[in-house]
């Protein structure tokens, strides 16, 4: 039994049968991190003493017959913009290099109450936006499938750490695709829940109206288990939705027979798309059709439109968040973050409102399409992971994003692996999205796909 690649579900079963203990698992994973992370840079801080203390407590409770839920005794990591009381939370930035929060983020409170074991704080692009950057206090994370490549961003550390077998689960954040992108590039599962489904309180903001926290794991079943613990209303998060939390694990069953899926036309093809992506998406469609789903093309606005809308809104909100620091100490920003934040000072109020009004129109477009289908399917990334090359120009605005459409509409969207590129051997990824609060639909489609395929069972080999 290779502890490194056991899923949350498998660990739960092993704990129930007393085949493994949380202390044993935590020790094994910490040793793996110590052996390999110097070459991956996925951690900013390993919380070893805390992890072992939490593991001992979980073990004591489980041995006594107390079970707090599916994360009880499960090691996990947090992107380092998620606040942790008494543990530095840096945003991977010189600006907050020594920041020690007084309180846990709400999502951390829920994971602690659920008996999770925090292994450490994980790398991010600077404040979940500025990256990949080589001019920050910590180096950028690397991709475990190929250390000469990057894991994507901004949840770079969570993507790399989960793929590398350092932990079965991590919390990432997603404003324009920062959970789904790294999940796609690292060959793991990553969910951006519905806006308001998971509390943002205590998470350093990027774009108030588009920030989401979400699970990154190695299986869809594990996404459902972690989501169960973190989802729910938070009266102190102004965007939180007060609606019931369903049983996400139960929602996995049932398959896709009779479901209507819409393959978005044009998004995963054309200029800039990896040549193997079309084949991988066609194969995924064939699997879903074989399982009984009906797949038909649907037409939505272009990725360029969605990217322009999202980025205009984000730029202004980002500037509002970072203005005091940018005026006082611009030299302490990484180059990329500074150049992505400052445009918000030059965008006029009427432009921001034009983008906000367009957002409404674009969200309505998706809602109208979802009257005819149960879920959208498309790719979760149009390329494979980039080479780690500090001389690469910043393509933040110039390259349309395939994840931003569902950031604009705020609906749940999940990335799962659907193949590997032939020449480079790098992961390719499928994206599934549905209507607001329809996480059960997204999870059901993705789980059915994973029950019929083996892509998610492939893991990178870490060289000594």
């Amino acid at each position, binding site marked *: 039994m290779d502890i490194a690649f056991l899923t949350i579900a498998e660990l739960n079963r092993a704990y129930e049968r007393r085949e493994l203990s949380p202390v044993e698992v935590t020790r094994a994973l910490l040793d793996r991190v110590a052996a390999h992370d110097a070459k991956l840079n996925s951690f900013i801080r390993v919380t070893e003493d805390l992890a072992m203390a939490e593991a001992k407590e979980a073990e004591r409770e489980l041995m006594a017959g107390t079970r707090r839920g599916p994360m009880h005794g499960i090691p996990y990591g947090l992107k380092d913009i998620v606040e942790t009381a008494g543990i530095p939370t840096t945003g991977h930035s010189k600006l907050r290099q020594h920041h020690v929060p007084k309180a846990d983020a709400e999502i951390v409170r829920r994971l602690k109450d659920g008996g999770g074991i925090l292994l450490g704080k994980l790398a991010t692009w600077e404040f979940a936006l500025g990256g990949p950057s080589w001019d920050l206090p910590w180096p950028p994370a690397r991709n475990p499938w190929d250390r000469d490549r990057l894991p994507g961003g901004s949840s770079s550390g969570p993507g790399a750490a989960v793929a590398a077998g350092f932990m079965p689960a991590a919390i990432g954040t997603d404003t324009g695709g920062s959970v789904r992108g790294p999940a796609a590039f690292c060959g793991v599962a990553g969910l951006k829940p519905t806006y308001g489904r998971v509390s943002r309180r205590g998470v350093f903001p990027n774009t108030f109206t588009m920030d989401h926290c979400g699970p990154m794991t190695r299986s869809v079943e594990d996404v459902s288990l972690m989501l169960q613990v973190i989802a729910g209303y938070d009266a102190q998060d102004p965007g939180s939705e007060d609606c019931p939390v369903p049983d996400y694990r139960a929602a996995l069953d049932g398959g896709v027979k009779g479901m209507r899926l819409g393959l978005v036309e044009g998004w995963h093809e054309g200029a800039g798309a990896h040549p193997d992506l079309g084949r991988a998406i066609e194969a995924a469609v064939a699997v879903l059709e074989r399982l009984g789903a009906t797949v038909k093309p649907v037409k939505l606005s272009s990725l360029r439109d969605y990217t322009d809308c999202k*980025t205009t809104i984000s730029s202004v909100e980002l500037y509002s968040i970072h203005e005091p620091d940018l005026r006082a100490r611009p*030299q302490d920003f990484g180059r990329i973050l500074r150049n992505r934040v400052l*445009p918000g*000072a030059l965008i006029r109020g009427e432009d921001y409102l034009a983008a906000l009004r367009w957002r409404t129109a674009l969200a309505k477009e998706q809602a109208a399409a979802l009257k005819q289908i149960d879920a959208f399917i498309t790719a979760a990334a149009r390329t494979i992971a980039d080479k780690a090359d500090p001389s690469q120009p*910043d393509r933040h605005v110039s390259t349309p994003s395939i994840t931003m459409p569902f950031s604009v509409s705020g609906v749940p969207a999940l990335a799962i692996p659907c193949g590997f590129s032939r020449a480079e051997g790098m992961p390719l990824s499928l994206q599934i999205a549905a209507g607001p609060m329809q996480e059960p639909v997204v999870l059901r489609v993705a789980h059915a796909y994973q029950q019929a395929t083996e892509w998610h069972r492939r893991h990178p080999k870490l060289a000594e």
Partner: protein
Amino acid sequence: MRNDLSHLPPATPDEIRAMVARAGVALSEEMMQQFIATWPQFEAMVRRLPRGLDYADEPAHTFRPARLAGDPK
């Protein structure tokens, strides 16, 4: 056909410097040169935004006064 502002001429480097100064941000010359190279992408993006949307397409703000006032219970 969408009504946008793409026909407007791009800002000159001097205009970019003036806009940054009006925002109260003081950059070194190296940082300013980096930003002067960056801004045209953002300017083009903003000018592609459609104008003249339907009145029903109100801004996607979330403003719920009852929520801010707290739970009446």
